[in-house]
């Protein structure tokens, strides 16, 4: 059976907010709220660029700048402006049109990667390994994800694989309590791979559907820490050749061009097969996701838009593209 976690309707025990009034546009409204200041500025910029002008070199340069300010990176920004210019160069073009085209170009890149998280429940447990650089929101994402899955009626277990950072284990335990999920842990400084191995056994014995393993944050250029991560993956493979079934990498929306490097290396080392972009409730637009999607084509399962348990939303390519292009959401 394959269930789609992203689509699973949230029911029952969520702490405060009543689950009924959680219509789809919520996250986007929140995202827009976060982006409102800069988006307004962005829309002004675009209007400013195009009110009196034809599509020429200067205009394209300005447009490129707008994209760069969303962290798309020079190369990706150039590619999009090139596409925009193709066939329209030298012609009059309205600001609205520009935003439309821009959004649709970005959406083209993002659409194929906006996928729901599919869990293959023939695996018992289905193992989700969560990896990423320090402070990108791994533990918080695990908490939110556990809540989602538990609400969907799945039996979830968490493993406190961050045995390095002070109180990381306690942090995950609190999320375990909040989501009624058992937490497998050892102590600070313990071997993370050994813990992952044990956790798998415990999860299998307990008939757990999904085992989510937290890992310590690490910079991708630290070879010894990346080796340690590789070992975790290897050891899990001894329990189930296909484990970990899902390797989620968290990315901080405020991160710049380095995020591209992060994905590249984590993917090579840990076999990342899905992304979560966190902290999209700020003013950062997370445009690097466009460059990452163009290059790696990894599914983006969720975005994090806040600190509370329900602030994990499925990724919507169109909305995200609109936000980057500074376009108002299409009210549905």
């Amino acid at each position: 059976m394959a269930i789609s976690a992203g689509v699973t309707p949230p029911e029952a025990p969520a702490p405060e907010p009543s689950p009924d009034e959680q219509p789809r546009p919520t996250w986007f409204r929140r995202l827009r709220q976060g982006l409102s200041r800069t988006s307004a500025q962005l829309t002004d910029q675009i209007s400013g660029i195009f009110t009196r002008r034809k599509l020429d070199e200067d205009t394209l340069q300005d447009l490129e700048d707008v994209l760069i300010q969303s962290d798309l990176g020079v190369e990706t920004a150039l590619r999009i402006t090139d596409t925009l210019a193709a066939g329209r160069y030298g012609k009059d073009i309205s600001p609205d049109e520009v935003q439309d085209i821009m959004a649709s170009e970005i959406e083209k890149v993002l659409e194929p990667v906006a996928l729901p998280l599919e869990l293959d429940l023939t695996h018992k447990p289905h193992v989700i390994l969560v990896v990423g650089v320090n402070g990108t929101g791994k533990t918080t994402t695990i908490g939110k994800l556990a809540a989602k899955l538990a609400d969907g009626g799945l039996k979830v277990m968490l493993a406190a694989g961050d045995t390095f950072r002070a109180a990381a284990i306690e942090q995950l335990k609190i999320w375990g309590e909040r989501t009624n999920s058992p937490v497998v842990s050892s102590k600070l400084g313990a071997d993370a791979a050994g813990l992952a191995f044990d956790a798998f056994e415990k999860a299998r014995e307990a008939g757990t559907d999904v085992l989510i393993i937290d890992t310590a944050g690490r910079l991708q250029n630290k070879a010894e820490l990346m080796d340690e991560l590789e070992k975790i993956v290897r050891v899990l493979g001894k329990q189930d050749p296909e484990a970990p079934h899902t390797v989620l990498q968290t990315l901080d929306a405020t991160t710049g061009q380095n995020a591209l490097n992060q994905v590249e290396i984590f993917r090579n080392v840990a076999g990342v097969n899905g992304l979560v972009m966190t902290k999209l409730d700020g003013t950062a637009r997370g445009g690097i996701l466009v460059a990452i999607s163009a290059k790696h084509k990894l599914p983006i399962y969720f975005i994090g838009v806040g600190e509370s348990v329900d602030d994990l939303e499925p990724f919507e390519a169109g909305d995200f593209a609109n936000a980057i292009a500074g376009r108002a959401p299409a009210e549905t």
Partner: protein
Amino acid sequence: MFESLQDRLGSILNGLTGRGALSEKDVSAALREVRRALLEADVALEVVRDFTDKVREKAVGAEVLKSIKPGQMVVKIVHDELVAMLGEEGVAIDLNAPAPVVVMMVGLQGSGKTTTTGKIAARLSARDKKKVLMASLDTRRPAAQEQLRQLGEQTGIDTLPIVAGQSPTQIAERSVQAAKLGGHDVVILDTAGRTHIDEPLMVEMADIKAKSSPHEILLVADALTGQDAVNLARNFDERVGITGLVLTRMDGDGRGGAALSMRAVTGKPIKLIGTGEKMDALEEFHPRRIADRILGMGDIVSLVEKAAETIDAEKAQVMADRMKAGKFDLNDLADQLRQMQKMGGMSGFMGLMPGMGKMKDQIAAAGLDDTVFRRQLAIISSMTKKERANPDILKHSRKKRIAAGSGTNAAEINRLLKMHRQMADVMKAMGGKGKKAGMLGKMMGGLAGGMGGMGGMPDPKQLEALKKQADAAGLGKPGGLPDLGGGPALPGLGGPKLPGGLPGLPKKK
């Protein structure tokens, strides 16, 4: 993944041979590349614009120094301007206030506030012998207070006892009181991570400030931050008036453009940088190093530091003397190979040298990797003392023995001998002429050895001298360099010259 700015400018401006003043056209061409390099380093666009405007102003009409290409002149101006913008001198945390001095840490979620709090406390306690109290005001993130408590335990720093149910402002008041009673010199308030547009939390932050009147308010920010760096720095500064910045994760492989962005929009100094996961991985900020990193120009300072760490200065001096005397046997060669290995091999060494990016690629393409060093060392290790001191006695039967002993073959041994002979010739040719110890002598033996002796780093003059020596030593002519790798003769070395004059390098302190 990044091309260094110098490489780029090199390819664009190699054609320009104009001397005299920099023309508007030269500058514009160069600045386009500068702009892109800065953007790729995550410097915020508005800061890039300001910056390139400033550089343009300075550069147009500037005299091009002799022996320097226009592009390199631009790089020098860019570099100097970057350093100026980042702040010439490092600024330390200011504790010049009545005790307990309150230091407040603010920043986005996950920027590293708690870890930095622990690091600063450990530093103040170990270096400045201050009695420090740490208090976590983070009542939002699960186990945040517990995290700081554990850090305190690890580092032996006092932490404020956790009282459940208190608000951040209450904790702030309590920690100042506790510090007064406990005779603490410094109290560090670790606040919850907050998004700079989260109004209630920004209000809370201002309340905490009002209640605890901090002497320092440090914005902790991730060095990997992208374009948003300007927004967050500006907002935090507007709301609480930060006194300085701490950049974390400087040990990542990002280019750290956020440093420039935040410094530029707030005008506040970068006081410290986090460089690792351990509690002592906190360093002072060196504007020049960051400037080089943003420009992708290698880090000559760390090269020298690394060289000083790994190379035994005395040994290098002895070798330099021997070279001067024209002596260079296989023992010397083995020493040099080992030193190269210790410094991270050929690629590590080249990567640290500004402007050598291109050469590095070509060396890699020629298959001259570090396994070559290893095999060559194995060959030398399989020789007798007598053979090492006097390679001329190596005839067929000895070579056969050495090949068997080192797991190589006669051809490889011959290549090594040929390389040694050529190097010895170069040494001889260059030796005995006073300062001109030869490129390799200077680079491998002399560089660190001389450094150690002088207790400093090479200044631009020396580097220029080094480059001239490289030309003189025949690096400019194909086949001039000893055939290090055997087989294909290092194609790169014969081609593009080393950047003349290496402008924009940090000057000797």
